[in-house]
């Protein structure tokens, strides 16, 4: 099939010419050209910080470009606001949904419609669109009762009701189970067949190769390539994305597991707020030299479990959590750190680090032991030396010990935070979303650091939404869904479909499948 850009008689739905946008510290978009034909599914690929979000915000009218032209159906257009973009027929589904939890589907959608319609009419239109594209949704349901995948469906229907000519999807699969991803792709293909163009933002190359006809690859704010992803290898695209070959991580897989270092015994915890998740009867055990991965769609109890482990949530019964056999559930985070448990939160800025403070003081955040503090006073030279060690040993670039944490890129800050915890030689490390929003190079370095720590005999718990990451580094994988933890599956019996089923809460079905596949493979 010829690429659309080689066909001169065809008019583009959207064309960008020489779009540039600068922020104080960075040139986010540098003379970007992009064309999308009607009915085309077009991927915009790039690492975090490559300029994808800025470009989408320009198309959706949230940001004005410094220079360049936007052509909509061949006509030059100034898109000055999201309302204007919607009027033109541009819809956007955001990575973080903008829905009111306490309202119903129909109420949420009615709020977004430009004209005032009675709720019944809105509901009728929802059902009509939903059935046409195979997006089953009950208009009368409240948002808070819905899974993340269902909420995304609501967002998509909301955009579709405006009859868009272009739908922008921003990292749509990061919150979905593998099965839900397949369903989404079917819907997107049907939409495209109806003539709606789709701009698909992602950094997951396998998905792009499965779904998209064309891909524009961004690096450092510039277009580094346009290709047909179905014909390129993932490696070739990755090279355009990061400008270098991807290194493989080396794992000495044969660390023999030692004695139990972290254990949870029948942990139950009622949700502290109405939209939180109740943890019920969670038990697990990790030995030294072992990485346990916890998979799951976000919002299924990961945050609550992390807080219970790090010590932000404490328990009356000390025996619920044991660290190296010592009862620890009644200890606060500093006391747990003192007996060897470190944690890395998923939220880098505002939890793992404070953006306005220099790296040296951020190093002190969790490293307040006798090395850094004597007689109640901070030993500035030691603290600074420790920060410099984190920077040197973990390849943190773009900052010194005196740079504010907020001035670093996400990947470099994450390397610093992980380094800060690992350099304190914890016996147990609990990490949440270690590589979320991090560039590929940093992600590899962080995974390598986790495996190196494992090789030294530490027990590591990794909570991640990225299944591929867990497949790469975990020795066992358990799944958390609705606050319950499935039994763990050892490496070698990892099965993407079974884990996907478990992620939607169907533990029994998942274990049946896994049994079946085992029998099958034998």
């Amino acid at each position, binding site marked *: 099939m010829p690429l659309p850009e080689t066909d001169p008689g065809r008019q583009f739905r959207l064309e960008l010419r020489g779009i540039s946008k*600068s922020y*104080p*510290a960075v040139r986010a978009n540098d003379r970007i050209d992009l064309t999308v034909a009607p009915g085309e599914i077009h991927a915009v690929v790039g690492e975090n910080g490559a300029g994808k979000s800025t470009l989408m915000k320009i198309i959706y009218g949230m940001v*004005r470009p*410094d*220079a360049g032209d936007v052509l909509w159906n061949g006509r030059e257009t100034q898109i000055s606001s999201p309302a204007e973009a919607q009027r033109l027929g541009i819809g956007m589904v955001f990575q973080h949904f903008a829905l009111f939890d306490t309202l119903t589907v129909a109420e949420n959608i009615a709020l977004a419609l430009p004209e005032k319609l009675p709720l019944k009419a809105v509901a009728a239109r929802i059902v009509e669109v939903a059935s046409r594209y195979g997006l089953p949704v009950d208009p009368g349901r409240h948002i808070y009762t819905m899974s993340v995948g269902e909420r995304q469906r609501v967002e998509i229907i909301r955009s579709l009701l405006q009859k868009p000519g272009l739908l922008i999807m921003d990292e749509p699969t990061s919150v979905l189970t593998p099965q839900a991803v397949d369903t989404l792709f079917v819907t997107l293909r049907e939409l495209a067949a109806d003539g709606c163009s789709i701009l698909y933002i992602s950094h997951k190359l396998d998905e792009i190769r499965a779904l998209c006809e064309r891909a524009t690859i961004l690096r450092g704010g510039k277009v580094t390539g346009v290709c047909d992803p179905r014909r390129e290898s993932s490696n070739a695209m990755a090279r355009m994305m990061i400008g270098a070959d991807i290194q493989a991580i080396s794992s000495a897989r044969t660390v023999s597991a030692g004695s139990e270092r972290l254990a949870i015994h029948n942990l139950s915890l009622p949700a502290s707020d109405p939209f939180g998740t109740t943890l019920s009867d969670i038990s697990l055990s990790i030995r030294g030299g072992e990485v346990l991965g916890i998979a799951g769609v976000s919002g299924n109890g990961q945050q609550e479990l992390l807080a219970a482990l*790090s*010590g*932000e949530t404490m328990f009356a019964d000390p025996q619920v959590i044991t660290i190296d056999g010592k009862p620890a559930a009644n200890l*606060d*985070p*500093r*006391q*747990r*750190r003192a007996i060897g448990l470190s*944690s890395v*939160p998923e*939220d880098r800025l*505002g*939890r*793992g*680090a*404070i953006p*306005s*403070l220099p790296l040296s*003081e951020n190093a*002190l*955040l*969790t490293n*307040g032991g006798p090395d850094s*503090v004597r007689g*109640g*006073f*901070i030993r500035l030279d030691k603290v600074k030396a420790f920060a410099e060690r984190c920077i040197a040993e973990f390849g943190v670039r773009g900052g010194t010990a005196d740079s*504010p944490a*907020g*001035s670093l890129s996400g990947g470099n800050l994450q390397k610093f935070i992980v380094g800060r915890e690992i350099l304190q030689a914890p016996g147990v490390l609990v990490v949440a979303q270690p590589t979320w929003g991090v560039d590929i190079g940093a992600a590899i370095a962080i995974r390598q650091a986790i495996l190196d720590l494992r090789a030294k005999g530490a027990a590591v718990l990794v909570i991640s939404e990225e299944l591929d990451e867990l497949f790469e580094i975990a020795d066992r994988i358990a799944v958390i869904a609705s606050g319950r933890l499935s039994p763990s599956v050892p490496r070698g019996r990892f099965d993407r479909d079974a884990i996907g089923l478990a992620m939607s809460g169907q533990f029994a079905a998942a274990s049946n499948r896994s049994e079946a596949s085992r029998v099958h493979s034998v």
Partner: protein
Amino acid sequence: MSIRFELRAQPSRTMVWLSPIIAITLTCCVAMVIFALAGLEPVSALATFIFSPLADLYSVGELLIKAAPLVLIAVGLAVGFRAGVWNVGGEGQLILGVIFGGFIALTFGPTGGVWVLPVMVVGGAIGGAIWAGIPAFLRTHFNASEILTSLMLNYVAQLWLSYLIFGPWRDPAGFNFPQSAPLAPSALFPTLIDGTRANASILIALVAVGLGWALMSKSFVGFQLKVTGLSEGAAKYAGFSAKRAVWIGMLAGGVAAGIAGVGEIAGPLGQIFPTASPGYGYAAIIVAFLGRLNPIGILFSGLLMSLLYLSGDVAQMSLGLPSSITGLFQGTLLFFLLTADVLIHYRLRATSAAGAPKGAANGL
């Protein structure tokens, strides 16, 4: 061509210290306009306003004696402000210091020895701490906003003091004036500089600056308080207790204000009046922010605010203006400071009408 604000890549360290200078300059401009409107020659009136309180040694002594409580309270409040604990009850805590210290002075002063004054200081500190402890307790147990509770307790404290002075503590030999009996010499701070009223309470303020600096810049507790103030999430993750920060923050302000209260009755006043404080507890809030919540900065801003109090008297005596001009200039100063603080995080950038930036940003 238009001018708009643009977020800086990182907060400007220069502007942190330049902003108070801009605020002071702009306040002087407003002062000159007001002088001109009042029919005075603006420049010479401003010069009188600023320099006449510094004309002689006695006046310098007055400057120091007024700056001392402002600096002392502001340092105490800054400990809390840095931790995100908004103690606006300095005035009430000061009055409790007056009541506790006053009780000790009136009861033991006439018969006691040199120990009376130190006991008064400790008593005043305890009084201020108790008054600050009430909002701290309400905040940590019921999540009640300490801004409201500490503010309301100011009025309660004021009424308590009035009751005591109009009732049990009224000086029988005072011709029915609302005032206590004069305090005994053992209950007074010794004078530091002959020929002035500058007394040893100034040394307490200097010690507070030193302690505050060590606590905030050098100690791990100070770091924990700072983290708590900057980011609740990070403090929780690190295991720094938010409740502990509330207690430390409130009590630091309460102890400082309580001691400042003792400094008032055991200093220039030498007697307890219902109006023991000319609003030091409130003015100290301005002093704390003007000094960037930094004890060294507070030392200077305290002197400046003290100058404003004295200049108010000058305005009344030599310029024929009402003394409320002090409050007006204090407010103006705070207003300009908060305005100029925007430039710490933002810079001004000239843009053409089309929205495209024109050249690099200039100095600000």
